[in-house]
């Protein structure tokens, strides 16, 4: 995930309960509430999120501007596995047009079945990179759109 905070780009990768930032620091993140996080034991509280692009956030009394392009405008080229697991269902074929929120894969991870949905309407599937039953790693590309 790439997020721009106060004009600084952050590349965030979530691996289990650790978060890797810019392929470098590994942070221990604990979520206490919907608005409280502990990063390496330091507490952060979110008091306000303002709509807009960029949006603003007030955290520990300080203001941050946060930019992430809305998914509608994003040029999404592929689907990656959000967590490591096993593909239990492949529900599309190469060449088919898929709709927003259509289920593409079912990924079993940590004893849970997770449905991976299509992000936008009218996407054409170019290639499917996995088969049913295959184990995948976090971030592994599962499908490529045209």
């Amino acid at each position, binding site marked *: 995930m790439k*997020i721009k905070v106060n*004009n600084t780009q952050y590349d965030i990768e979530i691996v289990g309960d650790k978060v890797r930032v810019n392929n470098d620091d590994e942070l221990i993140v604990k979520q206490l509430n*919907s608005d409280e*996080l502990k*990063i390496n034991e330091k507490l952060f509280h979110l008091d306000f999120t303002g709509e807009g692009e960029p949006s603003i956030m007030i955290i520990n009394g300080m203001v941050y501007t946060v930019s992430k392009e809305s998914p509608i405008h994003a040029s999404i*080229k592929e689907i990656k596995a959000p967590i490591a697991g096993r593909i239990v269902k492949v529900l599309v074929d190469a060449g088919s047009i898929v709709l927003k929120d259509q289920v593409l894969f079912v990924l079993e991870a940590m004893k849970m079945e997770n449905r*991976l949905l299509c992000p936008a309407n009218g996407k054409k599937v170019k290639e499917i990179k996995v088969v049913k039953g295959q184990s995948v790693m976090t971030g592994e590309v599962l499908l490529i759109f045209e």
Partner: protein
Amino acid sequence: MCSHFDLSSLSENVLIANRGEIAIRIARTCKKLDLKPFGIYSDADKNSLHIKYCEKAVDIGGFTPAESYLNMNKIIEAANALGCELIHPGYGFLSENPDFAMHCKREGLTFIGPSYESMSITGDKARSRQVASRITSIVDGGEVSNEVMAMDLAEKIGFPVILKAVQGGGGRGLRIIRSFEELKEAFADSKNEAMISFGSDRIYIEKYIENPRHIEVQVLADDSNVIHLGERECSVQRRHQKLIEETPSPVLTVEMRNSITKTAIAIINEMKYTNAGTVEFLFKNNKFYFMEVNARIQVEHPITEVVTGVDIVEQQLRIALGDGLMIKQEDVKSKGHAIECRINSEHPLSFVPTPGTITKFLTPELEGIRIDTAIYSGYSIPSFYDSLIAKVISSANTRLEAIEKMKNSLMLLRVTGIPSTIPFHISALNDARFISGNYDTSFIDELKPFSSKDGEMAAALLSLLPKKIEFLNKDVQEMAVDPWAISRFDTIDLFNSNYNINKWVR
């Protein structure tokens, strides 16, 4: 300090003709003095906390100030219905309206504030300038009744000039004019605006002092004595509205302080003014210019209270009750330093007022921190009144300690669900100009948002909430995340923003 007089024999009921934090503040002192506080509230304020601090409060109806807290008849009626003999107007609303003071007098009610006569002077900028000019420097200028007069006067004193309503106040309706063309354009508009806002179209012009400091002196006066409680530095402003105040002023020498407080007392004497008041000055190049007298308790009065130990509301009540001032000048001993930050429900960068519901309000319990507020978790801020929701006051032996304490308390203070000016304050308190004390009313123009690097990381992660990272550290069985929500950000192109985050809008 003032316990040697006993008011408990009196059974006066006090009507607090105000709302919000100041109504609560006044009610506290009433109770301390065994006076009974009574209240009023509008239809928009049915859930206001100040009602709970009163013995009883009556619904005077209405939503807008004009329908409620500015409606003299409704307020007098409420006072009579509640058996109140005293009326405390707080600040804003009717607090500086001489007609209200007169109205109270006619009804046999004691208005807690100066007399009708003094308020007629303080409320008329042309008259108060004239009275003050007998004592101290005032900025060049005068009242002008038409455009030709305005042009002549502007030529004489030189641009830039400022146009103000004679009956105006609170920094509203000021216009800075830099040329004859601008003056020609603005004059009629200013007259109209003054009429609409203040009920009088009288206008005066004075030389505009660019980027001065704004320093005021707190005074207390009865019929025979006038004392001062030191000065307050109020130069951190936006749109002529104060945001941070501190006492003592970091810029005054002992000589300057003696001079400005002496001048303030002389002006108050000259106006035959009684009760609590504030004499405001502009300060530029080591010279003071009288600006105006504020005939009310001010928003920023707590900083003076915490350094002097004097309860200003108590003095107001005692003066109004005819007991006179209970303290002499030599009793006033200022100790340490105090700072006030005004927390407004406003966008932290643009200062656009934003009413809404406060989902969480948590205040830190820290020594040396006073918080005057009327909000609570679950409170909805009505859109009809001003945006001030809390005042945080820090005090310590030294200025730097007071700054540190304020920073800590603001980082711990939680006002959730609405935007607030807390980030502005933290930025200001971290600004080198503020820390050195070397700032003036242009402070905000160069202010940059202050934030921390690890906070940026928190922002990035929190922006993925609610569902995006909620599987972190949760029990496996509970995990119900929509994985798409995570993966969809992987391929986002860099968003180029032209949003200017580096400047506060004045």
